[in-house]
C-alpha cells in the first residue's frame, strides 16, 4: 500500500543567494519571535542607511554640479555619466569619487534585498530614479516567501496523510470549523509582517495578559468585529494576533497554531485553530494571574515587586507597566535608530502613561523617580525593557545588583536599550536527534535482523541496557560530531578561548523556585506512571522540565551581555540534561522508563539542595547507583549480556559512541563551568560527578571490548 505522494513543487524563486559556508555547522533553530525581531530590526537599519545614503548622494551631486559645471548640461544623468567614465578608467573629480562610493554602497544594499518584491525587480535603467531602494519591509517580504514555501510543504504532508488515512480507514481529525480571523500561518515563526501596516496599528498585546486567557477549542472561536478605537489598554476589541511560542503560554503546545483575540479589559483569548477539541482539553490551564495592580503584583522570584537595586527597580517597573502600555507603539520607537521631534513628543506623552500605570500598580513615587531615565540612551533602554517584558513575561529575570546610578532629578520621560544584563530569549528547545540519522540507524538494524521482533534478540538487550545507561544516552542525540574523542584532561586550566563569562550564583529564592518546579515535574512522573495522565503524551512533562531548565539557565546568566550569553550557550555548560534526556528516553524507549526519569529529576532537586519527595526510596536508588559505579563486575555482566547477543557489534559501537560523545560534552561543560562558577557550585559538582560515572562505565566497556 503506497498512495501516490504529492511531489515536491518547484521552489519559488528567490533571487537572494545567501552566502553559504561549506561544511558549516548546523545552526540551532531560531527561537520563536526571534526571526521577526531580527527582520524588523534589520529593516529599520536598512531604511535608516538608505535614507542617509540618499541624502549624501544628493548632496554630493549638488557639490559636483557646482564644482564641475559641465554636468549641468544633463543633471539627470550625472551618475550614469560618472559610471561610464569610471568604466573607461577616466580621471574623476574627488567629489565624483565620493558620490560613486556612496552609490556603490546603495547598490550593494539594494542587491542584498532584491529578493521578492516586484518593486525591486523593476527596470533600473533609469539610474537617477532608482539610486537606492525606498521600499520598506524587504526582509519581511522575503521571509513571507519562505513562509509560503513552508506552508506548501505542510500542505503536501496533509495531502499525503489524508491519502494514507483513507487507505487505512482512519477517520482524520475534524478540521477547525471556525473561520480564522486572520490568514492562517504555518507553525513556523513568521508572523504577518508588521511593516505591512503602520506601526501604530500593530499593537502587539502584552503576553503577560495572555496567560490569563482560557484555552479554547477551535469550535469556540468566533470572529469578533474589531472595534475602531483602542481601549485603555491600547488594544482594539476583536483584534487578533498569532503567537506560537509555547514558552509564552504554558498551555500552548509547540507546533499547534494559535490565534489570540482581544476581548477587552486586558484579556486575551487563546484559540487553537487546528487542534481537535480533545487535544486542546488536555492542555493545562494556567491559573488566572493575580491582578497586576497594587503592591502585591507578582514581579520578583518570590512573587513581590523587587526594588532592591536600581536595576531591579527599573525592570520591576517595566514589567508592571508593560500590560498597560501600547506595545506596538513602543516597539516602533524601539526599532527606530533615530528619534525625530515627533517621536519625542510621543515619548513625552507615553511618559505620563508610564507614571500613571506605575502608580496604579503600586510603585512608590521614590522608586519611580529613581528609575526615571535621564538620557536618551536610558530612555531607549527602558522602552526596550517594557517591550521585552510584554514579549516574555515569564522570562524577565532579575539581574545581579548593580551600582546605583548617580541620583538626579526625575525627568519627563522613561526608557532603555539592549545591553548589559538584558533578559534574553530563553534557550531554544534543543534539537532532537536527526530523523534521518535515526532512520538510517534503524534501517541498518533492520537489515541485520536486529529490530524485527520487539522482544527478541539484541533489540531487547539494547533497550534494557540503554535503560540502565539512560543518563547519558542523550549523548547519541543531537551532537553533530560523531568522532570518538575521549576527553582532554579537565583538570587543566581553561584557555582564554575556553573561558566563559562568570555566571551568577543562584540565590536561595531562585533555588527554592527551581526546586519547586523540579519537584512538580517529579510528582508528574508518578501521575504518568499511575495512568492519571495519558502516557502517550509526554509533551507536557517534557515541556515543564524544559521550562525549568531554561529558567535555571536564565538565572545563572543574569547580567550577562548577549555576547556573553552566546558564549555560555556555546560552551554547553548549561546543557542541562533534562532537555535532551527526556526527549531521548521517551521517544526511543517509550514512556515506561519512569525510574530513569525520576532519578534524573531527583538528581536536579538534590543538586539544588532540595529533598526529593520520596527521599527514602531515592536514597536507596542512590546507593544502588553508587554500587553500580563501583561494581565493575556487575556492569561487566550487563555489558557481557549485550555483547553476547550482539554478534555484529552494532550495539557495542552505538554504546561506545554514545559514551565518548557524552564524555566530550561533559568535559566541555566542565571546563566552562570551572571558569564561570566557584568551586563550591552545585552545578560544577554535578558535572564532575556525571563525568566520574560516565568515565567509569566507559573504562569498563573499553576494557571489555578488548
Amino acid at each position, binding site marked *: 500500500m503506497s498512495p501516490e505522494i504529492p511531489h515536491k513543487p518547484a521552489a519559488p524563486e528567490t533571487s537572494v543567494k545567501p552566502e553559504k559556508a561549506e561544511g558549516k555547522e548546523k545552526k540551532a533553530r531560531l527561537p520563536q519571535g526571534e526571526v521577526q525581531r531580527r527582520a524588523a530590526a534589520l529593516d529599520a*537599519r536598512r531604511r535608516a542607511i538608505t535614507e542617509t545614503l540618499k541624502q549624501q548622494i544628493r548632496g554630493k551631486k549638488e557639490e559636483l554640479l557646482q564644482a564641475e559645471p559641465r554636468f549641468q548640461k544633463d543633471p539627470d544623468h550625472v551618475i550614469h555619466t560618472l559610471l561610464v567614465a569610471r568604466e573607461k578608467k577616466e580621471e574623476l573629480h574627488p567629489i565624483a569619487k565620493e558620490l560613486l562610493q556612496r552609490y556603490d554602497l546603495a547598490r550593494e544594499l539594494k542587491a542584498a534585498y532584491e529578493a521578492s518584491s516586484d518593486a525591486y525587480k523593476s527596470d533600473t535603467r533609469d539610474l537617477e530614479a532608482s539610486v537606492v531602494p525606498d521600499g520598506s519591509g524587504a526582509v519581511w517580504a522575503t*521571509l513571507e516567501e*519562505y513562509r509560503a514555501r513552508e506552508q506548501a510543504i505542510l500542505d503536501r504532508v496533509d495531502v499525503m*496523510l489524508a491519502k494514507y*488515512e483513507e487507505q487505512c480507514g482512519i477517520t482524520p481529525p475534524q478540521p477547525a470549523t471556525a473561520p480564522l480571523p486572520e490568514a492562517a500561518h504555518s507553525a*513556523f515563526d513568521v508572523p504577518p509582517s508588521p511593516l505591512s501596516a503602520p506601526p501604530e496599528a500593530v499593537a502587539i498585546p502584552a503576553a503577560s495578559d495572555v496567560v490569563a486567557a482560557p484555552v479554547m477549542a477551535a469550535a469556540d472561536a468566533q470572529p469578533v468585529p474589531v472595534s475602531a478605537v483602542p481601549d485603555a489598554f491600547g488594544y482594539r476589541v476583536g483584534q487578533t494576533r498569532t503567537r506560537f511560542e509555547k514558552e509564552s503560554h504554558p498551555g500552548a503546545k509547540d507546533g499547534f497554531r494559535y490565534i489570540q483575540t482581544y476581548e477587552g479589559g486586558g484579556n486575551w483569548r487563546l484559540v487553537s485553530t487546528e487542534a481537535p477539541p480533545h487535544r486542546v482539553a488536555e492542555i493545562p490551564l494556567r491559573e488566572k494571574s493575580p491582578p497586576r495592580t497594587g503592591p502585591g503584583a507578582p514581579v520578583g522570584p518570590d512573587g513581590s515587586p523587587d526594588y532592591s537595586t536600581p536595576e531591579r527597580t527599573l525592570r520591576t517597573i517595566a514589567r508592571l507597566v508593560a500590560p498597560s502600555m501600547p506595545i506596538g507603539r513602543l516597539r516602533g520607537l524601539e526599532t527606530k535608530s533615530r528619534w525625530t521631534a515627533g517621536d519625542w513628543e510621543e515619548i513625552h506623552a507615553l511618559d505620563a502613561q508610564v507614571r500613571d500605570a506605575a502608580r496604579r500598580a503600586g510603585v512608590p513615587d521614590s522608586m519611580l523617580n529613581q528609575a526615571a531615565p535621564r538620557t536618551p540612551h536610558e530612555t531607549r533602554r527602558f522602552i526596550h525593557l517594557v517591550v521585552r517584558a510584554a514579549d516574555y513575561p515569564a522570562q524577565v529575570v532579575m539581574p545581579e545588583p548593580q551600582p546605583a546610578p548617580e541620583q538626579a532629578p526625575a525627568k519627563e520621560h522613561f526608557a532603555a536599550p539592549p545591553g548589559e544584563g538584558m533578559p534574553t530569549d530563553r534557550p531554544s528547545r534543543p534539537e532532537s536527534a536527526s530523523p534521518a540519522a535515526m532512520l538510517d540507524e534503524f534501517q541498518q538494524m533492520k537489515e541485520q535482523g536486529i529490530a524485527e521482533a520487539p522482544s527478541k534478540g539484541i*533489540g531487547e538487550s539494547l533497550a534494557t541496557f540503554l535503560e540502565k545507561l539512560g543518563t547519558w544516552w542523550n549523548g547519541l542525540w543531537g551532537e553533530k560530531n560523531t568522532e570518538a574523542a575521549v576527553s582532554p584532561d579537565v583538570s587543566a586550566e581553561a584557555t582564554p578561548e575556553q573561558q566563559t563569562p562568570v555566571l551568577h550564583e543562584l540565590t536561595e529564592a531562585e533555588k527554592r523556585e527551581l526546586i519547586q518546579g523540579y519537584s512538580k515535574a517529579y510528582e508528574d512522573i508518578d501521575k504518568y506512571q499511575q495512568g492519571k495522565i495519558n502516557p502517550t503524551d509526554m509533551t507536557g512533562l517534557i515541556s515543564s522540565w524544559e521550562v525549568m531548565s531554561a529558567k535555571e539557565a536564565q538565572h545563572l546568566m543574569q547580567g550577562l551581555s548577549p555576547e556573553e550569553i552566546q558564549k555560555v550557550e556555546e560552551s554547553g555548560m548549561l546543557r542541562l540534561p533534562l532537555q535532551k534526556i527526556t526527549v531521548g528516553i521517551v*521517544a526511543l524507549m517509550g514512556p515506561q522508563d519512569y525510574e530513569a526519569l525520576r532519578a534524573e529529576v531527583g538528581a536536579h532537586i538534590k543538586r539544588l539542595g532540595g529533598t526529593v519527595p520520596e527521599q527514602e526510596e531515592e536514597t536507596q536508588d542512590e546507593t544502588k547507583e553508587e554500587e553500580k559505579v563501583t561494581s565493575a563486575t556487575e556492569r561487566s555482566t550487563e555489558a557481557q549480556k549485550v555483547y553476547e547477543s550482539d554478534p555484529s557489534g552494532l550495539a557495542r559501537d552505538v554504546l561506545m559512541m554514545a559514551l565518548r560523545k557524552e564524555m566530550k560534552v561533559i568535559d566541555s561543560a566542565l571546563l566552562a563551568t570551572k571558569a564561570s562558577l566557584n568551586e563550591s557550585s552545585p552545578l560544577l559538582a554535578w558535572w564532575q560527578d556525571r563525568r566520574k560515572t560516565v568515565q567509569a562505565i566507559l573504562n569498563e566497556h573499553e576494557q571489555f571490548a578488548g
Partner: protein
Amino acid sequence: MDFTQFSTGLLECLFVPDAQRQRSLAVAKVLSDADRLEFLRHLQEMDRELRQTEEERGDFLEHAERVVVRVEHAMARLGREGEEHAEREQEMKNMEAQLSPPPHVS
C-alpha cells in the same frame, strides 16, 4: 526497542506541527513494517525540506545582516575620511591665510 516505538520516536522528532505528528502516528501504527518504512521515508523527506527551508531562511537573515553591517561600516569609514579631508582642507586654508601678507602691508 520495537519498530512502533522507534517510529514513534522518529515522529516525535519531526518539525511538522503536532496535529500532523499525531495523525502520522495514527497511520504508522496500523501500517505493516514495510509500508511504515516507506511512509516514514516520505514523511522524512518532506520534513527535511521543512528544515532546509528554515535553514535557508536563517541564512538569508544572516546574509542580510552582514550586508547591513558592511554598509554601515563603510559609511562610517567614509564619514571619517570626509572629516579628515575637511580638516586637511581647513589646515591648508589656515596655512594659506598665514602665508598671505596682511592687507595693510602692500
